[in-house]
């Protein structure tokens, strides 16, 4: 059945990419370590007073998460492009949207998910007030997934060029996520209702998954013009 084949194909790409990623420990350790290093730089640069660091904590965690997510996208498509696997994907007559989505999912699993866990550590290092861990994790979950989507688009547009270029292209589009994520944290710290912002972030994700994946497919197809 066609539907069964398509799901199998999706599973194939996901399983293969995840297996390769976990073979090479640097794929999931590097974003994690980068995240922690950036977090460490702020107290180092600004001084270790608890009051200062604590007020900066939500912003610092968000900025570190954003930067690590965006810088880790480099290999998403370029490796497959170089060894001919990308050709195979387009030859298989399966919807390329699923190819992009599985790459995004894989990227999130090896980059966004570890960051989510590391942010718990980060919240202790930066004296984040207790009780705001849950909104932090919820907003970071939505935010890092959106970052993976944007990162995939950036990687596809700048296929083969430097990682920094793909970051510049995509960074302005991540500003709403940053603003909303940190607003959620500020509201949570002041014990106000943040659910409105969460809903908007969720809506952005819901629109972003089909929209950004389709744009990414267009960007990859540029290669075959």
């Amino acid at each position, binding site marked *: 059945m066609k539907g069964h084949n398509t799901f*199998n*194909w999706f*599973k*194939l790409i996901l*399983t*293969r990419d995840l*297996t*390769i990623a976990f*073979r*090479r420990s640097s794929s999931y350790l590097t974003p994690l370590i980068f995240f922690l290093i950036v977090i460490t730089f702020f107290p180092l640069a600004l001084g270790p007073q608890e009051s200062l660091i604590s007020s900066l904590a939500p912003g610092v965690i968000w900025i570190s998460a954003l930067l690590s997510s965006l810088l880790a996208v480099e290999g998403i498509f370029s490796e497959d492009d*170089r*060894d*001919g*696997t990308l*050709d*195979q994907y*387009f*030859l*298989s*007559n399966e919807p390329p949207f699923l190819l992009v989505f599985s790459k995004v999912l894989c990227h999130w699993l090896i980059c966004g998910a570890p960051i989510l866990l590391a942010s718990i550590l980060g919240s202790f290092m930066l004296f984040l007030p207790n009780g705001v861990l849950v909104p932090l994790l919820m907003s970071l979950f939505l935010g890092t997934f959106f970052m993976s989507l944007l990162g995939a688009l950036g990687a596809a547009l700048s296929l083969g060029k430097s990682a920094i270029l793909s970051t510049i292209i995509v960074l302005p589009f991540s500003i709403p996520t940053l603003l909303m994520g940190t607003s959620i944290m500020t509201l949570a710290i002041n014990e106000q209702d943040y659910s409105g912002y969460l809903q908007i972030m969720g809506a952005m994700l819901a629109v972003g998954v089909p929209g950004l994946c389709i744009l990414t497919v267009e960007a990859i197809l540029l290669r*075959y*013009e």
Partner: protein
Amino acid sequence: MSYILKAKDLNCYRSGNTIFQGLNFEIDSGSNIEVIGSNGSGKTSFLRILLGFIPDYEGLVHWSGNEENIDVRYQEKSCFYQGHQTGIKPLLSVYENLKFSSSGFSSSRALIHDSAIRVGLENHLNTPASELSAGQKKRIAIARWLLKDFDLYLVDEPFTALDDEGCDLIKAVMSELNKKGSSFLITGHRNSLLDTEKLILDDLK
């Protein structure tokens, strides 16, 4: 005899230069064609036009089972393609490379084992491909051909970087698959002395 793939008056231009023109051929079931050309004669471009990766061509490419005259990009192609870069992932073992290919994902363990034995890699099933020699990596690629039967196999330069034993292996596998009705369109830069129809691209400038 019904053909699997044919091309008529195919012209290829890249960056304003004529790569080849006036190419005509037809492949029937169970027969092979070898495309010979020096470097830069357009062997890879030729294959990529047939697959629909290069929309910039003139002429007719027709895969059987489709209506004539529609662009090759929108035709259904039942083929196996192996490009110049074979797509063998260095971090995966031989077994995993075979299992995680589109022909192999739904294959049973036994079938994958048999393919590996056929190409002589049964002792390396769990070795990562990065630890194998270039010739052995090519053998993994050959094993992939055996996992599922296709009407047409398009292989770009299968004999490059293979020793005599490897070349014999390819010839044997090709004749086995020919008997099952599959056809091969391979490219190369020198005559492989296979007993097949030849298409010499250098003559078609």
